[in-house]
């Protein structure tokens, strides 16, 4: 008798924020095949982009994803700069690097929190997101926005980093570094987390090459690829840092890559802040000549690729965008098969498909702060006490 069953996940996923449809084909508890349907969230960016000017497009591509909202505009402006052979001032390059690395830390902490949530470890989720707040606060200080930073423009950046920002950043980074150190130890020491992540959702190296996966997904499968090292842009060749690579290809390796990358990011930001050069933050641009250009950056999830065909006018003739998840999600066809249904949710999340959600911890009402962090903590304790009292009854 055929005991194959189909378990549909999506299109409106109970756990994830974005619509994607995974059809798990199972025999008993074991996943034997996976079909992926995407396209529920298609917003036609490439179509829209052809009708917008080079000044407007960074704001458009920023909205591709709430988390990679520095990577996409950065890749786009680099593509236009490649097409127009535009040189960017040194200071702007350093500022771009700092923003880009801050984005990586906050994205990796976001993923860590979600991974903790998926395996039922809500403590990991709460703590990771608590320290992610510090990074978002830095963003708010530098750019005025917690997400959608609107920092990149063709020829430079829009806001400068002030001296007083540097002191605050250094203090916050010390705190984040301590927290990430704590997570790394806690996760590697915890037998339950290891049991859930080790040897699960393995993506071997040759399959990773075949699917063309990028970013932490590739680096956890032993592929030492990283745009920041391979094709140095911004200020990545001016500071010392290392690529993090693991060979195992399982979910644990992906977690390790992301955790250790946070340390490298902090190292890069410190290096950039130390020798931040003085001077202009943007070049004046007359016109973009006809031609073509390729821009690529290493987003937290992997390589972001933008191709621009310019026509000599003020808008592109064609703008091709490739986000890292486009390559990474497809590899789940392989990584989920052979494991149990319970592991599938985690494996699907391990490539870090995109989410966008940012909630403030501070509540404002009529312009006044209503609850602070301490208030919320106190309320949470009070509620726990109440629950305990009810259970004792």
């Amino acid at each position: 008798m055929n005991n194959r069953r189909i378990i549909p996940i999506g299109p409106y996923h109970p756990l994830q924020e974005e619509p994607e449809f995974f059809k798990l084909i199972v025999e008993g508890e074991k996943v034997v095949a996976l079909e992926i349907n995407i396209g529920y969230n298609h917003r036609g960016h490439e179509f829209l982009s052809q009708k917008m000017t080079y000044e407007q497009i960074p704001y458009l591509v920023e909205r591709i994803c709430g988390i990679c909202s520095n990577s996409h505009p950065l890749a786009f402006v680099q593509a236009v700069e490649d097409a127009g052979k535009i040189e960017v001032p040194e200071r702007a390059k350093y500022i771009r690097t700092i923003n880009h690395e801050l984005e990586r830390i906050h994205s990796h902490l976001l993923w860590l929190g979600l991974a903790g949530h998926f395996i039922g470890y809500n403590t990991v989720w709460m703590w990771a997101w608590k320290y992610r707040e510090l990074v978002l606060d830095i963003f708010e200080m530098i750019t005025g926005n917690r997400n959608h930073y609107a920092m990149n423009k063709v020829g430079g950046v829009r806001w400068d980093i002030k001296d007083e920002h540097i002191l605050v950043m250094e203090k916050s980074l010390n705190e984040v570094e301590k927290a990430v150190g704590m997570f790394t130890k806690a996760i590697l020491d915890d037998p339950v987390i290891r049991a859930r992540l080790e040897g699960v959702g393995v993506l071997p190296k040759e399959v990773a090459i075949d699917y063309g996966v990028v970013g932490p997904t590739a680096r956890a499968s032993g592929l030492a690829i990283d745009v920041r090292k391979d094709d140095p842009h911004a200020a990545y060749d001016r500071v010392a840092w290392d690529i993090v690579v693991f060979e195992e290809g399982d979910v644990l390796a992906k977690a390790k890559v992301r955790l250790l990358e946070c340390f490298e990011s902090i190292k890069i930001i410190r290096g950039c802040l130390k020798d931040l050069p003085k001077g202009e933050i943007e070049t004046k641009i007359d016109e973009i000549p006809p031609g073509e250009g390729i821009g690529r950056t290493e987003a937290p999830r992997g390589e972001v690729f933008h191709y621009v065909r310019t026509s000599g006018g003020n808008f592109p003739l064609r703008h091709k965008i490739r986000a890292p998840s486009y390559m990474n999600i497809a590899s789940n066809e392989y990584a989920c098969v052979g494991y149990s249904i319970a592991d599938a949710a985690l494996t699907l999340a391990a490539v870090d498909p995109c989410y966008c959600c940012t909630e403030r911890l501070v509540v404002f009402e009529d312009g006044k702060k209503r609850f602070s962090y301490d208030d919320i903590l106190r309320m949470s304790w009070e509620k726990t006490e109440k629950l305990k009292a009810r259970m004792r009854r």
Partner: protein
Amino acid sequence: MRELEREIRERFPEVEIFQHSPRRFYITIGKEKIREIAQFLFKERGLRLSIITGIDSRDGIEILYHFSEDKTGTYWTVKVFLDKAKPKVDTISDITKAASWIEREIWELLGVEFIGHPNLVPLLTAEDWPKDKFPLRRDYE
């Protein structure tokens, strides 16, 4: 001259190679050679297929295969030109799986047929999207 550039010229004498900047190369080749050059770049030289771009331009439909050579950080973009009336090109999705989704996408958005693609069903558009409307064509209203 780069080593890979020399090898490509030896293997495919008819190619045109244009160096845009130190790390950006554009290779123009006949569409009947695409499988051969993809095989060479991906299987023999270990380049990664980053993405494929389709452009409806004045000279016809251009298909651009962006291959990334990760150890040097170089992009080798292979260009083929297709006839606008009946755009058709061989699939490379059996050479690298990375081409599978994007070929489906170009097929539905630009109307290019990828001969031999095993699963040419819509990727992004709805199932009831009209089969003769291609949003990325110039004449699309």
